[in-house]
């Protein structure tokens, strides 16, 4: 138990550092922004209570906001992500539920399961984030395009990371 908590806390800082120090400095045209840091929320254990998920989302979002000087933007999107995660998890649940002592990762549930899970949550997060950024529906379709392209990029980064840094 203590080990799981400690690992998650360390992961919290690692994703923030990767996001702020590396990915925020990689410029891939105006349409592509990978927001890798949401991996932290995706990898939290199945049994995490909902309120704790929300608080974790809030802390994560506000930390990113403090670095990018966009106070409130990532916070709103990440709290929303934490809010919908339980529903998405129950949507993709195996017939007899998630096994005890397992975590939402490729290692336990396979690539296709993880890819679908990550893609849906990433899309929801990016949708909220990008529309808060433009803040009106005037450029609805160009924003939607940015959402879709960035979702693909973020999801691939997250899946790749499962093979390299956060294996277990």
């Amino acid at each position, binding site marked *: 138990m203590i080990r799981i908590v400690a690992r998650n806390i360390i992961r919290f800082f690692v994703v923030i550092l990767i996001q702020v120090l590396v990915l925020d400095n990689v410029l891939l045209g105006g349409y592509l922004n990978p927001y890798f840091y949401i991996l932290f929320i995706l990898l939290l254990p199945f049994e995490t209570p909902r309120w704790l998920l929300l608080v974790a989302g809030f802390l994560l979002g506000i930390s990113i906001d403090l670095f990018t000087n966009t106070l*409130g933007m990532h916070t*709103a999107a990440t*709290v929303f992500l934490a809010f919908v995660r339980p529903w998405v998890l129950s949507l993709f649940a195996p017939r007899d539920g998630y096994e005890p002592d397992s975590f939402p990762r490729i290692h336990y549930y396979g690539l296709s399961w993880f890819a679908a899970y990550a893609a849906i949550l990433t899309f929801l997060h990016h949708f909220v984030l990008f529309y808060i950024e433009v*803040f009106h529906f005037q450029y609805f379709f160009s924003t939607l395009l940015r959402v879709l392209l960035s979702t693909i990029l973020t999801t691939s980064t997250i899946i790749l990371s499962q093979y390299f840094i956060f294996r277990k």
Partner: protein
Amino acid sequence: MRGLLWLLRKYNYILVFIFLETVAIILLSNHNLYQHSILVNANREITGNLYESIEGAREYLNLRQNNEILVRENARLRNRLERLENSIPDSLSMDFTTGNYFYTPAKIVHSTHFKQFNYLTINKGRKQGVTRDMAVIGEEGIVGIVLESSANFATVLPVINRDFRLSAKIRKSDFTGILQWEGASHLVANLNEIPYHAEPAIGDTIVTSGYSAVFPEGLFVGTIREFALEEGNFYRIYVDLGTDFQRLFYVNVINNFYRKEQVELENNRE
């Protein structure tokens, strides 16, 4: 009660969610100028419409008073017309092209008068040609300056706001000072920086100076209530405001056609 507690326990995460999202939106609005401006505009439209319907009901209670004000204004305008007609031999010699100002009547739908930073909301906005930095006057004196406008409403910075500054002068002697408000009473403002040799007297009329290109020259502001000589050889003059903000219902917004030109010229010189 039991059921309520049970509901709260079961769905407490929704409360947590709403709370955290609210915090995020507040942060967003307070720290990001662009999102802030959109929220404020949307808010002005919504509250403006709400206040307008409340004000509609309140209007009936003040009908008698408004009638009186309108009758008085009618009489004043009739007198002016009479004088003007007498001074013009025939209509051919009248010149209609010299009007620099256009008046838009508007109704106040919301106002505060007992705070330090008071604001008014009027029911005319961009669609009716009301934009930033236009002057607002009432029947009994100046009211304020348009601060922001949305499609159908505008916020006015009135004289009784501590951020308000306007150049005004004593009509008798043409000495110019700065009109501002110090938050004590909504009936009294201050005229500062009048030099000691101006020799003001109680009851002297204060009018706008017209230097700022917002207000035309010579609009009634108020009368001198009392004055005292300050250190540095300046007078500190207390002005009884002509406008009683508590009884103000209708205003006129003044659009100065040449304001843009004047401001551009002045900016070029700097």
